[in-house]
């Protein structure tokens, strides 16, 4: 459905939904990639808006709904990495500087989630983005490699390394059950 807000250049190829629908459908994905990566709500929203505006300019090049989804994912990832590099957001805290919980955490514990997010925020950029695509977007290593334009074996080793770091950090206090 088109709204009064849609513009003339919203003309999408027949296989693609209108621009407003694309924004509604994918805003959670694009915003969350930026939010989970940058941990700055204002920056994440600004970045997500810029990604959609970039899509708006390239809408005529989109061939299908799947192409749009892949393009948004790829551009959001690369822009988030660029943004972090530009603003030197990494690391806000070193991985050793993240405090460990003193009591065992229950499944779905918000404190544990918060600690995990801070640990992820302290990971190197590439490892962090691979982890976000793996667990937020549920992509397999081959799909992550395609989005980030790196070899599959690099993604596999980045995922292994980041999981090993998280296990090591969490396992000390949370015991074997978490790993």
């Amino acid at each position, binding site marked *: 459905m088109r709204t009064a807000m849609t513009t003339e250049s919203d003309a999408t190829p027949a296989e693609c939904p209108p621009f407003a629908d694309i924004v509604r459908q994918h*805003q959670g994905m694009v915003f969350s990639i930026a939010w989970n990566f940058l941990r700055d709500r204002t920056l994440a929203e600004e970045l997500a*808006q810029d990604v959609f505006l970039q899509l*708006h300019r390239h809408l005529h090049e989109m061939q299908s709904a799947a192409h749009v989804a892949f393009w948004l994912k790829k551009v959001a990832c690369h822009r988030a990495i660029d943004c972090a590099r530009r603003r030197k957001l990494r690391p806000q805290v070193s991985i050793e500087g993240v405090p460990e919980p003193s009591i065992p955490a229950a499944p*779905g514990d918000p404190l544990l989630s918060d600690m995990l997010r801070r640990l992820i925020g302290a990971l190197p950029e590439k490892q962090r983005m691979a982890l976000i695509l793996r667990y937020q977007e549920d992509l397999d290593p081959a799909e992550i490699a395609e989005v980030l334009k790196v070899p599959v074996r690099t993604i596999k080793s980045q995922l292994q390394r980041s999981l090993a770091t998280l296990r090591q950090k969490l396992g000390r206090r949370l015991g074997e059950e*978490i790993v």
Partner: protein
Amino acid sequence: MSRLDDELRNALRREDPGEDFTKRVLERAAALPPKRSWRERLLAVFGPAGNRWAAGALAASLLIGVGGIEYRRQQRMRAEGEAAKAQLMVAMRIAGSKLRLAREKVMQVGEE
């Protein structure tokens, strides 16, 4: 699947940017200048239709002016080349006659 996988999925779950996000994006998209082809952008450089004729005439005048100057420069260079060639020929002729005279003098001395 380990508990760590579950906890990571929970920590990295998708979040919504808020109700007004779509509206804000569409407002910004509507404010963007319309996308134009390279031809339209080129034509826009010369402004409205009336100005295009003036700009075309100006460009043609400049082209003719520059062409005329270049043609005159070439003509001048050719004339200078011709003059230099003529001077060289005169010099050669004078040198030839002097040589002939010297040769005759030498022959006369030899006969005496």
